[in-house]
């Protein structure tokens, strides 16, 4: 795995070099400024597989560097791990919104860095194997007919405001659970019958539809502060932060209206019709780090359950039972 580490503190660079070397990550390039890093990334013949970025650096900070790297098509999905002493909520929010995949606060535990990099390496190797098996994927040309694998894999959607990868959303919540989950909640959005609707369609049509639905979600949620992710098929999950009540039925009506206005069609001219179902919001406050990941799943299950039987939306879970469930 070809790694680029950027930090203006030479001791950190030496430390990372040592920590990574011992677990076999020896293809490491060290860089002491964002501008130097950008130049290296741009002219690299073999692209980097992973970036380790500090946040507080002179001139261009690590969050701006993350945005600049993400703007390069070949690094739209490359894992970016922030390694920073900035533990404030604002920095975490901004880093993930800019496209960070994960976040470690300094001073770091060596074992934690090893664990995160092993996970990243496994992901990178998996992607590389996919590229080897499907050279068409390298050229950015989608296969003609959508497969079950295409339907179930989460899409990145990083060009859409507020959207990040599903794994990054989990990592974001894990990091926030160490700082404060105050005022944060999650809800799921399910588009029923996606698999049936797209069973004989192209990957391009499916991915375009998912992108359009995500754009409608993003536009409808603004100006609220949120991060959202596609979870595969017709499932989305969204994390809200900041003040203000969330009304799922109002949001659902606005979202359906926004999608209708988009007037979506298949390539052969047939109209597409989607009626997404929005689940209730689940408070993330007081959740443990394990609890936040399962809350994302629960948010989607709740939306699925309402999609199957709309009458369940009106069945309010007693507050005492909610407490027992940890919601």
């Amino acid at each position, binding site marked *: 795995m070809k790694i680029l580490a950027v930090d203006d*503190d030479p*001791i*950190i660079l*030496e*430390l990372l070099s*040592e*920590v990574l*070397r*011992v677990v076999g990550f020896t293809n490491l390039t060290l860089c002491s400024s964002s501008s130097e890093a950008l130049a290296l990334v741009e002219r690299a013949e073999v692209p980097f597989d992973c970036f380790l970025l500090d946040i*507080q650096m002179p001139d261009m900070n690590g969050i701006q560097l993350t945005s600049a790297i993400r703007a390069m098509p070949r690094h739209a999905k490359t894992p970016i791990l922030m390694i*920073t*002493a900035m533990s404030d909520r604002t920095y975490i929010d901004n880093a993930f919104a800019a496209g960070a995949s994960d976040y470690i606060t*300094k*001073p*770091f*535990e*060596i*074992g934690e860095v090893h664990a995160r990099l092993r996970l990243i390496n496994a992901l990178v190797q998996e992607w590389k194997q996919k590229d080897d098996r499907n050279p068409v994927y390298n050229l950015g040309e989608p296969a003609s007919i959508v497969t079950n694998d295409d339907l179930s894999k989460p899409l990145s959607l990083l060009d859409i405001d507020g959207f990040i990868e599903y794994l990054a959303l989990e990592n974001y919540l894990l990091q926030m659970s160490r700082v404060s989950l105050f005022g944060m909640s999650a809800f799921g959005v399910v588009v029923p019958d996606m698999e049936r609707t797209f069973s004989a369609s192209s990957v391009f049509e499916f991915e375009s539809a998912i992108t359009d639905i995500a754009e409608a979600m993003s536009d409808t949620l603004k100006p609220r502060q949120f991060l959202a992710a596609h979870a595969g098929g017709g499932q989305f999950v969204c994390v809200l932060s900041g003040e203000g009540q969330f009304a799922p039925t109002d949001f659902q009506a606005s979202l359906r209206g926004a999608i209708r206005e988009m007037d979506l069609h298949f390539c052969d001219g047939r109209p597409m019709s989607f009626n997404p179902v929005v689940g209730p919001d689940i408070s993330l406050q007081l959740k443990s780090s394990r609890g936040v990941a399962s809350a994302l799943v629960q948010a989607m299950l709740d939306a699925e359950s309402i999609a199957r039987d709309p009458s369940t939306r009106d069945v309010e879970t007693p507050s005492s039972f909610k407490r027992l469930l940890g919601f």
Partner: protein
Amino acid sequence: MLSESNGEMSVGLARVRARFVDEMTSRLDHLIKLRSQMDDALSFDEASVEIGQIGHKIAGTAATLGFPELGAEAAKADDIVMSYSKSGEPSQNDVRESVDRLVEIVKEVVHSG
């Protein structure tokens, strides 16, 4: 945090740790100079911002290299300076006291090697 490492890593980390202590020696002189500038009200702000930046850097590595107390004191100094430059709180005296504690612990690290 060093205890997690295996033997091979310990040798490498010991080298980085020695470099860190060397760097503390030159940082100590700089910190003492900046601390004396903080006695002058006109140069207080500029000196404290620079001390905050030094504290921030020390806090990022010290604990991983086996100096948890130094890391904690450096993080406190960074926080206090940041808070002072944002809101004027706490008082300049509190900022000076925090820097004094940081200088003392840097001295201990430098002398203990």
